[in-house]
Every structure is written in C-alpha cells, then in structure tokens.
C-alpha cells in the first residue's frame, strides 16, 4: 500500500515496501562491494576496508583500497545500476519480460563495435570504449528506424526486430573472432564474457558522470513509462506525449546500456533479471526504475564477489550468465505452465 505525504498543495506518494526493498538492496550491494574490495592477493578484513574508506586506515591499506580495488567495486555497482534501469525501461516499453537490451541487440551491437576496434582497427582502451558506445547507439538507431511505422514505434515490433538484429550481430561477432590472430582473439573473447578485472578510476569516473546525467533523466520519465503501459491510445488521451517520451526513454536506455557495456563488457542477464526480481520483491505493478537499478547493482556486485571467491578465476559475466540462464529457464517454464506469454 502506498502512503502520501502532503504539505499544502504539494503531495508525494511513497511505498514503504518498495522503500524497504530499495534500502535492503543497497545494503546488500554495498556489503558485497566491501568484501570485493577486501578480496585479493593481499586480503583485507571488512572492518579494515571500511576504516580505510572513511580515512581512518593506515597508508598502505588505504592505497590498496581506494586506488587499486575501490574502482572495481564502484564500476560493478554503477554498471549494475545502469543495466537494471535500462532493462526496466525496455521491458516496460515492449510489455515483454524478454524485451531487455541484452536480448534485443543493443548489447550485441556494443560488442560488435568493441570487437571491430580490438580486431580490425587495433584501437586502445578509449577507442574500444568509443567503439562499443557507437555499436550500441548504431544498433538501437537501426532497430528503432526499422520498427518505425505510421508515425510511431510499437514495443512489440521493437522486440522482434531487435531479436533479429541481435542474431545477425552475433554472427558478425563470431566471424570477426574467427578472422583474428590468437592473442587478439583471446582479448576479444575475454571482453565478450564481461569482466570487472583491472578496473581503475579511468573506468569508474566516466561511468559515474554518465550516470549522473542519465539516471535522473530516466527517473524523471518513469511516470510516463508507467502511463505508457495503458496502451498508446489511453496514455495519449490522458495527456502523455507518447512518441516523444518513448524517443527520450529509448535514448536514455540505450545510453545506459552503452556506458555499462563500455565499462564491463556485455555482462549478460542482469538487465533481463533485475527488473523482474525487483518487481516480485516490491510487489508493485508497472516499472519501478529505482528498485530495478538497485537490484542490478546488488546482482552485479554479488556476482563479482562470487567470481572472486571461486577456486578458479572466472569473470563476472560467466557468473551472471549461469545464474541468469537458470532464471530464464524458470521464467519460461513458469509462464508456459500458466499458459500465457
């Protein structure tokens, strides 16, 4: 049930359950991040990590924590946030739990852009980042243009065309790797699994700045996204500029997908799973971007911690892929049983 706080003509609605879930997810994400920072060749206990973070630690520990390992944890949290929110945006617009950016080609497009840089142009870190952003944006523009018909874009068409685009780009990615030299192919394959290894402030800072712009924009359009779920006609009749809102939301969603892919590679399934899990926990109908984002941050952070604690070195993308695959099977089996789509 929602509560209302009123002051004069102003009123704000909030839901205690959603707020509690949000706080809980934030706590889980931050706790996992603390343990991620503590893990490595030189283990640091959680209290010591916290002490270093608040400026009470000794010099060596503080250096390891803030300069070497904190960026990794920050990238994990931020990229997870971006993935969760972008997943919620696209799933809501397509009215389909499978309509997430990792399944409708945007993430695959980011990979193609990155692979082209790694394998064909031999670009450095910055060029790879630019390549993946360009790949995601280019794919999204093509998918959006192809689904444009009669003055607008329907969510359903967006998903179908996106899935087609993803398949073609997947094929292109495989072809690029077969043509590569062994060392480059290794680098490319590593990028493709999605990893948080060797992330520094040069990765975390741009990601943080991008999210400082994109996340508030997404939240500001959240209400219109909710209204859009009533169908274009009803939403429009209620005063929502449907097509303009959709264009902004697509742009923001693609931006979030692109910057997260740039920072961690195409980590699979977080965008797909986070909004659905958040929705089940908050028991809300409609999209809730903030809880989806916090769920994404918690998932990626915990996934990273698991990948660090496993006896063999495993990139975080493999962990989220394995967990997400299980979820996907469960989702399809559950909807199959209900006899609905």
């Amino acid at each position, binding site marked *: 049930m*929602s509560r*209302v706080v*009123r002051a004069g*003509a*102003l*009123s*704000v*609605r909030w839901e205690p359950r959603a707020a509690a879930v949000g706080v809980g997810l934030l706590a889980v994400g931050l706790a996992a991040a603390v343990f991620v920072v503590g893990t490595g060749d030189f283990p640091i206990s959680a209290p010591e990590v916290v002490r270093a973070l608040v400026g009470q630690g000794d010099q060596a520990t503080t250096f390891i924590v803030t300069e070497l390992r904190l960026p990794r944890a920050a990238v994990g949290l931020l990229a997870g946030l971006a993935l969760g929110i972008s997943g919620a945006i696209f799933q809501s617009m397509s*009215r389909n739990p499978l309509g997430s950016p990792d399944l409708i080609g945007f993430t695959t497009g980011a990979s193609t852009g990155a692979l082209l840089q790694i394998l064909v142009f031999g670009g450095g870190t910055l060029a790879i980042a630019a390549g993946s952003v360009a790949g995601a944006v280019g794919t999204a523009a093509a998918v959006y243009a192809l689904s444009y018909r*009669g*003055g607008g874009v329907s969510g359903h068409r967006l998903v179908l065309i996106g899935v087609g685009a993803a398949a073609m780009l997947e094929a292109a990615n495989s072809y690029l790797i077969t043509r590569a030299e062994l060392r480059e192919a290794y680098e490319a394959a590593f990028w493709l699994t999605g990893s948080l290894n060797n992330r520094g402030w040069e990765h975390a800072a741009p990601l943080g700045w991008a999210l400082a712009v994109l996340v508030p924009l997404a939240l*500001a359009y959240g*209400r219109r996204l*909710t*209204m859009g*779920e*009533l*169908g274009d*006609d*009803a939403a*429009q*009749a*209620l*005063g*929502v*500029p449907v097509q303009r809102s959709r264009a902004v939301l697509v742009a923001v969603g693609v931006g979030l997908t692109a910057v997260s892919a740039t920072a961690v590679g195409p980590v699979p399934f977080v965008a797909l799973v986070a909004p659905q899990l958040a929705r089940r926990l908050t028991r809300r*109908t*409609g999209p809730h971007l903030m809880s989806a984002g916090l769920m994404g941050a918690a998932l990626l952070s915990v996934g990273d911690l698991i990948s660090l604690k496993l006896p063999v070195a495993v990139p975080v993308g493999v962990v989220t892929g394995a967990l997400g695959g299980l979820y996907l099977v469960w989702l399809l089996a559950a909807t199959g049983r209900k006899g609905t789509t």
Partner: protein
Amino acid sequence: MNRLVARDLTLAYEQRVVAEGLGVEVPDGSFTVIVGPNGCGKSTLLRALARLLKPREGAVFLDGEPILGQPAKQVARRVGLLPQQPVTPDGITVADLVARGRYPYQRLLRQWSREDERAVAAAMEAVGVTELADRVVDELSGGQRQRVWLALVLAQETPIMLLDEPTTFLDIAHQIEVLDLCSRLHEEGRTLVAVLHDLNHACRYATHLIAMRGGEIVAQGRPSDIVTAELVERVFGLPCRIIDCPETGTPLVVPADRRKALTAGML
C-alpha cells in the same frame, strides 16, 4: 458555438484516405452516437476528435482553439477517451488503474492530492466498483473490466467523454448495463460521444445520431427524426422496417426477412 467541433477534416492512414472534407459539431450536453458500416470512418473520426490521429487537412477545435496546439494535459482535463482496446497492465488492482486517470492533474511534487483521492473514490462509486477496489483487474469479468475502465475515464473529470465501441466483446446484459451507465453519466451533465455497432442501441440511447458511410455524414439529428427505412438502406444497404420500440418509443430496426424472397426467386 459548441465546445468540440471538427472542420474540413481529411483523415488518412499512411496512403489510404478515409474521409475528405468532413465537418462535425458535437452538440454540448448531447449523447452523440456515431454509426455506420464497417470501414465507414466512424472510429477514425473519433480518433481525430480525441487528437490521437492528426488530420491531413482541416482541424479539430476544442473551445474554439485547434486541439493539437493545446498542451496535452490541459486537453486531457476536458476530453477523456475510452479506447477500443485498452491495455490493462499485468496484476494491476482496480484502485491503481482508476487512479491513473488522475495523470492530467499530477505533477512532480503534486503526486496525489486530496482532490485526486476524492475523484477516484467518486468514479469507482459511480460505476459501482468500490467493493472491487483491491481486486486484480485481470481476474474480473468483461463487463466489470469495462466498468473499471469507465471509472478511469470518469476519474479524469472531463466534461466531454469519447467512447470507442464501449460494448464490443460484452454479452447483451453487460452491453445494456454499460450503456445505461453511459446514459446516466450523460444525464449528470456530461457530453458523450460514442461509436456503436448496434443501430438499435444507438437509437435507444443517443440524443444526437450521426450516420456515416464511406467517410461522409449521411444524416444527423435526433434518432426519431432521422432514422427511416430509407436511411438504413442507404447507410447499411439493409432493407428493413422501422417500428417504435415498445419499451422506449425510440425507432427499432427490424431487418426485412429476405429468406422468403430468396426462396421465392429460386422457384
């Protein structure tokens, strides 16, 4: 002048022109019903009145100003629409769905005023779904669901309500229930414009009937003044007799029994 007026509309989807030079005035305070055969442009006209479809030429005027030039939320406080196939979000409750009708009145820091609360409660009361407030809409019957959607449009508190085939997919009892409800909303002072398939329902409930064929208005006026056997034949191509409805006194269309003629012709 009437509040909702269309002038010289050319309406088209992509390449297909549905209507040209179409002019309509919705009389204030009327229950206007638009009828006509499939594809005559009646739903298209309603979409244009609801500013869901941009006319290729001409314009729809609301309170004397072109409707497309006015801020969307301000229009949405004066004209409401029940779409033909509204989409009910998964798992949404009746109260939550009806509450979304308040969107035109809400802002970032005015998310749920006492006014919103009152309007939603009144709307649910008016269509008799107050007891269903916490039920999930997907689990309701077709008739109940249609009443919930009507409540959403009512919560919008617009003086003008547009209804696109509000009785499709309902059985006869629920069709009458929904139309009786519409009639009551009209008597309370709202202007209603509905597209209906059933000519007899149209005659029974409309105070102003618009008969369309091939993108043109063939006749308009009070049903008892304009509905004749010739008109029905001209609009729908259906030979019929018109009698007075024994229940309401409005025109009742009884299709001619052509089976006899067919059998006779074959002999």
